[in-house]
């Protein structure tokens, strides 16, 4: 008893922020402990014993010994323990040389433990993550969750919704990171989600998954062709028929490739009949709706037909989906693609062409036109389409209101002192008062290492910490901050650097795809098992390659990655001069086997 101060000092050395949060808790918030038969403190919560009531220390040691034996610790690396309790089991692990991370959702329980046990050894060996939601943990601590997870069973019983889901999520996350899933990714025909679809494809491939893209954008000209009809009914009929054909095309591609998952991005041309047939083929489908559900409402028609539905908004959207029977919804914000959105050293000519003290890139939505009129006295450049060519904005519009491609966007972000980021609205006068989701531009500007002023969004606070993203809520506040930051380049640089670090750590499409797949695998045990068996089969097959002349050499020539494909191997076959090995001849024979669909 009375270990709080000593423990807190140990904690402060490793994690001052957490120490400060714990310190702010009042003594009254601590949980009353009980005394075990051997005189040590122990605990019961909601009628469930967290530790033994006879000898909690010995019980903790035994648990730790079993965990060490089962997972061959500490040789296999750091671990993540789910549940702090009073820390007996963690002391057991620390005594056996195990280190890692502990996740405890209840800050009061952690505070109680600090008061009641000498936890110096635990606080030295383990980093503590306390009081965070599972969603925040998934996003901010994915590396911890991908490690060997040691669930503390009584803690899981107390927190089934947080620690329980994290336990299965950890397994799935490891599965998602191991790659090897065959994914048919359906691009939209056009629109803002098309680049996101491409970023997703690149991310999934980097993770070692096998991605087949249904490039629906190839039909964009077909949709435009509808404009040649005089009557709206004819245009619509043509578009509907073309959409049905494209949707059927996705089904045929699924038939050819037998994917483990069909992933569609917002505006992807998948009709409900196709989704029903994919379900009949036992192919899970997922949709990432990277749109504002209040503005684009077609989700009502498609969401019930997808097995997994992801969106960029939280509870309100979840409730609306629930009303139409969609329960498998997950919040998944958009992100940046650091391979594209990156700091760029610009030439003087580029700085001249794209730079300005104040800039905005995007379409001329009503609220932007309105708010930006109040900035017309600044040295302000506006890039993008659909802006009205009327005073006072007309003289600010660049390139005659041409659409701006991604590369140019990146140059503009890098070249501007202050990048404005105002989420769009068709009805509001300026800043959307109850705006929730965060747009891609927020992450993209940050990934470029550029400074931005972004309008306040309710979901921004959990994506960026204080000091990482400067926000505004009104025109006067915006003007005040523009003036301030134009005068303080050093402060801009600090924000930009912190924002960039946060994006690289948590808000990339690699992270999003990892999370999306892990959530699907956590829900779909059949698919998770299929992936596990595939990995086992893969390992077994690889054990056999030793006796195969030329096979290892051929596989070694493949680009690094956990999932070689036949096409990848065909591409690696020697062409022209080299003498073919036996393995290469066999693959060439395979390449020429006549294939049949059924």
């Amino acid at each position, binding site marked *: 008893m009375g270990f709080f101060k000593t423990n807190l000092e140990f904690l402060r050395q490793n994690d001052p922020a957490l120490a400060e949060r714990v310190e702010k808790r009042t003594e009254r918030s601590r949980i009353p402990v009980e005394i075990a038969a051997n005189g040590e403190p122990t605990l019961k919560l909601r009628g469930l014993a967290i530790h033994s009531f006879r000898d909690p220390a010995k019980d903790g040691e035994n648990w730790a010994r079993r965990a060490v034996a089962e997972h061959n610790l500490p040789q296999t690396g750091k671990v993540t323990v789910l549940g702090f309790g009073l820390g007996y089991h963690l002391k057991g692990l620390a005594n056996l040389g195990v280190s890692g991370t502990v996740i405890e959702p209840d800050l009061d329980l952690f505070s109680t433990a600090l008061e009641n046990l000498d936890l110096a050894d635990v606080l030295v060996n383990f980093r503590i993550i306390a009081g965070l939601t599972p969603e925040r943990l998934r996003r901010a601590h994915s590396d911890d969750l991908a490690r060997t997870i040691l669930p503390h069973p009584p803690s899981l019983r107390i927190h089934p919704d947080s620690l329980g889901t994290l336990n299965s999520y950890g397994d799935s996350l490891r599965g998602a990171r191991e790659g*090897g899933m*065959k994914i048919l990714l359906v691009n939209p025909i056009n629109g803002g989600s098309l680049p996101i679809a491409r970023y997703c494809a690149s991310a999934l491939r980097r993770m070692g998954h096998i991605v087949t893209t249904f490039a629906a954008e190839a039909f964009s000209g077909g949709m435009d062709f509808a404009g040649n009809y005089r009557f709206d009914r004819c245009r619509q009929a043509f578009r509907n028929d073309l959409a049905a054909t494209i949707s059927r095309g996705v089904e045929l591609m699924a038939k*050819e490739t*037998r994917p483990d998952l069909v992933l569609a991005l917002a505006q992807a041309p998948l009709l409900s009949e196709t989704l029903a047939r994919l379900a009949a083929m036992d192919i899970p489908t997922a949709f990432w709706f990277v749109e504002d559900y209040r503005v684009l409402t077609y989700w009502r028609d498609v969401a019930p037909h997808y097995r997994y539905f992801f969106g960029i908004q939280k509870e309100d959207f979840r409730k609306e989906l629930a009303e139409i029977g969609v329960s498998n919804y997950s919040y998944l914000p958009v992100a940046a693609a650091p391979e594209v959105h990156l700091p760029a050293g610009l030439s003087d000519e580029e700085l001249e062409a794209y730079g300005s003290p104040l800039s905005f890139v995007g379409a001329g939505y009503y609220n932007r036109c309105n708010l930006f009129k109040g900035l017309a006295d600044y040295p302000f450049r506006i890039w993008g389409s659909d802006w009205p060519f009327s005073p006072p904005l007309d003289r600010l519009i660049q390139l005659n209101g041409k659409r701006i491609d991604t590369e140019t966007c990146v140059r503009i972000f890098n070249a501007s002192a202050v990048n404005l980021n105002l989420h769009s609205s068709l009805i509001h006068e300026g800043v959307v008062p109850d705006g929730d989701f965060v747009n891609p531009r927020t992450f993209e500007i940050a990934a470029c290492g550029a400074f931005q002023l972004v309008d306040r969004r309710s979901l921004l606070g959990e994506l960026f910490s204080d000091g990482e993203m400067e926000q505004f809520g009104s025109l006067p506040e915006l003007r005040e901050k523009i003036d301030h930051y134009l005068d303080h380049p050093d402060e801009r640089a600090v924000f930009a650097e912190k924002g960039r670090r946060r994006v690289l750590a948590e808000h990339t499409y690699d992270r999003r795809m990892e999370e999306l797949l892990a959530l699907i695998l956590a829900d779909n045990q059949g698919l998770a098992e299929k992936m596990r068996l*595939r990995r086992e*089969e*893969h390992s077994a*097959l*690889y054990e*056999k*390659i030793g006796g*195969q002349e030329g*096979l290892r050499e051929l596989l070694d020539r493949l680009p690094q990655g956990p999932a*070689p*494909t*036949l096409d*990848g*191997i065909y591409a690696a*076959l*020697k*062409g*022209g*001069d*080299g*003498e*073919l090995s*036996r*393995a*290469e*001849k*066999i*693959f*060439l*024979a*395979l390449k*020429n*086997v*006549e*294939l*049949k*669909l059924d």
Partner: protein
Amino acid sequence: MKEIAIISLTRFGDLIQETPLLRILKQTWPQARITLVAEQRFAGILPLVHGYDRVITFAKDEVADRVVFAEDPLVPYFSLEAFVRELEEIHYDLVINLTFSHMSAFLASLMKADKFVGLVAGDKGERLISSLWGIYLFTTQEGNNRLLNRINLVDMFTRLGGEKPDGKPVELIGTEKGEAFADAFLCENGLFGERLIGLQLGASDTVRCWPPESFATLSDLLQERLGVRTILFGSQSEEPLAARALSNMSHPAISAVGKTSLEGLFSLLKRCALLVTNDTGTMHFAAAGGVPTMMLCTGPAFFHGTGPYSSGNLALLADIPCAPCRYNFNCPTLVCREMLTVDAVYESCRAMLRGEPHPGRTGVKAYRSFFDAEGYLDWQRCDGGDDSDEEPARRYGRMWKECLDDGILPPLFTGTAEPCAPELVGMATEGVQISSRIAGAAGDNPLPMDELSLLGDAEAAMAAGIKIHSALHPEMAPLTDFFGLMRDNITAEGLAAIAEETRSCYEWTRYLASRL
């Protein structure tokens, strides 16, 4: 010769069409063990095929399935590798690849053998066609060359195997199981003692199918006027066709469609006095069973290359310039099917059954098969019509048989006085001279690089000129394509040796063009 392997992975009809080769090989090399490499899905025919000692079956569909659907690329690899291991078990004296696919070429290249004939992949994966007959077989597959081909695939297989045709038909030997089925079928359907005519309705392609309604009318006529009974043959997938035909018959035929195993099909066919058929595998069964066969050639079907391999068969072809059409041509009219009228087919059947001369019908050409003096199968127009338009194909046929038979270029051959293809002879002669000069210069030390460069350009221009020649003179295409394939198959290494082989290509072209 102790170990011979024959790779036959194309169709089950091919397994029938190679029976003469098996027979002759066995006669020539009675001590040799012959291994047949066949597709698993055609294995049903193997009890009927004689002349081989051992069989290795290839489950190609399973491997294909794994190529498409297996999650790991090593799954199809090891699936195929298991088959390859069987191929590698024995060192063969001779491997004859009768399958003209790249897949089979790589499989052949994995086998251990002293000699390969047919298609095989080289050490670097290049396509090699060994033997002149192999090159000729490939030549017939190019463009419209098959229309100028008079040599049946069976004879090409035999020649590819290094043997000469013996004037005997393809052969299968019925099994007890098949005979028992045929007896039971005839008994169940009250057909014992009846004169039977088989009708094969289906084919691999719709354009090769005479309409089932026409078959229905033919069946009625045969039964009404000649007092025969008709049996419909076909696989399970052809049941809808049979249903269409049966629904149009006044006197329903007996349907064996989808009811026969391959052994049963063969034994039941043998009980027929005649088979009227589209271009199908059933047609080859009939030929192997000694059953007179009438082949209805519609679309691209053509009797010269793949007609039934026995004498006394009849082939009917619409008398229009476009028949037979080219492969994969999507004909909007299918006029060739309409021109083969029911009356024309019926009259032909009646004449065949009665052993009478063909009656001749306007709009239809009729051909009868026979073995020529050298033992090759040939077809003679028998409807009394003019067959002078076939003279170019006849000349080609004679030329290939005479020139390729020994596979040896006559020494000091200088050409005939009045060649049929003087321009080609001239170009080939020039090619001989250029390649001879390259061969000569290649022996100089140091190499005359400038001269060789000029000569190389000249040779390439000549080769291109020969190719272009066939565009201007399509009737020369078999020769120019033969030249092109020979030139593609040069395996020599080193400039002088390559030049010698190139010269040989031109010499052969000059020789062949002179003899046309």
